[in-house]
């Protein structure tokens, strides 16, 4: 197999707060190959967004601190770059789109101005050329009549259109990697499907890699090639989309999968995982999932399990992975 585009090695990100140390991301390793979509799934607060922001070094320091790890992008460790070098990577090599298209665009500028800014920043072109490219980009993300919409202010566009404009902005410098943090969560379901289809289409066309951060396994199933499931700052299960959906080897992933409502079923309540997400300042000893796990045995409380290799690339952090599911 080819060398990965992005290798995250034992990334550990902590937040130093007045109430104590929050271990948001603990020893996370991931890799993304060129042209691949990796889904990063988990509940709110499991550390998936922090992982994404750590890669671009966008977390405010303090309170955040990347304690350990390496983030190798194209062979360079991003954690060792100077702020100036990092500014050249952001937007140009790695772009990011955010959850809230409503607030991710600056209300005082037209969307054209905002995208032009990104192009002028990284590509050596003049303003007229940049403007032409923006029209093409807006057309590419299927915004109707891009010649006039380029001069629209964000409040004049619908949520779906704004997210398309955000995607256009992220794609403006043809990044090698796109980090999409819950790109469809704030949109309604029909628009979600369209935006996902668009993302997938453009990703294939440009041969771009995507780190898709979401809490929605349905989104991952439709879009990703491989999945990493996170819980309490750790990776619980990691593998290709087919193996995870057909051969679950982790009780947490299983719980997530069974909480997706099925069309044929008639039931009053959703199948939820019992218990609550643990307090990140006060994580349980041993396996972080054991208080909520139906497979829990005494051993789970003693020591945190390592990632067991199930089959090739398929990994699971559970001592009873063989019995699971």
């Amino acid at each position, binding site marked *: 197999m080819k060398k990965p585009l992005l290798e995250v090695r034992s990334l550990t990100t902590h937040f130093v707060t007045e109430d104590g140390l929050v271990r948001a991301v603990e020893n996370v390793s991931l890799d993304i190959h060129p042209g691949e979509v990796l889904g990063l799934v988990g509940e709110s607060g499991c550390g998936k967004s922090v992982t994404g922001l750590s890669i*671009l070094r*966008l977390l405010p320091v*303090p309170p955040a601190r990347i304690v350990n790890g390496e983030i190798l992008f194209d062979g360079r460790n991003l954690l060792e770059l100077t702020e100036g070098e*990092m*500014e*050249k*990577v*952001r*937007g*140009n090599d790695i*772009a*990011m789109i*955010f959850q*809230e298209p409503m*607030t*991710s*665009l*600056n*209300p*005082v*500028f037209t969307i054209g101005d905002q995208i032009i*800014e*990104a192009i002028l*920043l*990284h590509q050596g072109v003049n303003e007229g050329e940049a403007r032409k490219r923006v029209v093409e980009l807006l057309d590419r993300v299927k915004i109707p009549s891009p010649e006039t919409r380029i001069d629209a*202010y964000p409040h004049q566009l619908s949520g779906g259109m704004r997210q398309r404009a*955000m995607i256009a*902005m992220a794609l403006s410098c043809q990044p090698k990697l796109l980090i999409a943090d819950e790109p469809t969560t704030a949109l309604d379901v029909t628009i979600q499907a369209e935006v996902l289809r668009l993302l997938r289409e453009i990703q294939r066309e440009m041969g771009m890699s995507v780190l898709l951060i979401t809490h929605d396994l349905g989104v991952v199933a439709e879009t990703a090639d491989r999945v990493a499931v996170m819980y309490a700052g750790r990776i619980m299960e990691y593998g290709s989309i087919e193996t995870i959906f057909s051969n679950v080897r982790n009780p947490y992933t299983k719980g997530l999968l069974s909480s997706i409502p099925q069309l044929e079923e008639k039931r009053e309540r959703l199948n939820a995982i019992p218990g609550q997400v643990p307090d990140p300042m006060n994580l349980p000893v041993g396996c972080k999932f054991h208080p909520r796990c139906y497979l829990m045995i005494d051993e789970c409380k003693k020591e945190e399990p390592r990632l067991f290799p199930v089959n090739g690339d398929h990994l699971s952090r559970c001592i009873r992975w063989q019995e699971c599911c």
Partner: protein
Amino acid sequence: MEKQKKVFWRYFKKNRLAVGGLVMVAIIFLVAIFAAVLSPYDPDKTDVSLKLKSPSSRNYLGTDQLGRDVFSRMLYGSRISLTVGFIAVGISIFIGILIGATAGYYGGWIESLLMRFVDTMLCFPSFFLILTIVALLGPSIFNIMIVIGITSWEGTARFVRAEFLTLRERDYVQAAKALGVKDRRIIFRHILPNALAPVFVTATLGVASAILIEASLSFLGFGVQPPRPSWGNILTEGRTYIFDSWWLTVFPGLAILIAVLSFNLVGEGLRDALDPRLRGRR
């Protein structure tokens, strides 16, 4: 943007006093610009045979102890007031934005350092500070503008910092960072335009207080030096004749009152129209 302007006008127009103030401000501006055309006499031309004449059809506002036409001197005096008002405010807004934005955006020790400096500056009674500096540097219109500017920026710095504290957490700031935009550009191009509304309000109110400070300084003899006319020094020269020649003190006093009042009314109207929470109170 167009829509916002329309909404702004709708609310501003409701406030009759503010509209009146705006009209007055416009008139003062026109007077200052066309002072040379409007004034019937040379403001510096003395004629002792005409001294201390009361207002008449020949001298609308009478003449002073040297026989100079008060009306003409008042028209030229409006130039001083407006120039000092606007340039002093320009300087103070510039410093205020620079310090407030830096403190609010970076936070941490930079913020602590800058804001403690602001607190220190606020401890000085600013009028006496101005007097001291003018006494040291010598009175001139140029010095007055700079001194008023560098002693009145603290309020702007404080609320610009407060605005930046909330605005820097906005998603679009994060998005701009993710695009590799440099800090300086984020501060001035992405955040500042979103914080400008209250800056306009303080600027307008600041013009009023700068006009007042200039008049006070000129009154005390530390401001614009005669024979150059300013409302403040016309007033101070007329003080000696206050019981015999009332027009020498009443008209410049009224001019200062009207100018300051107009700018304050416009400033308050702006604040009410720009702040959605204050709308519809009337």
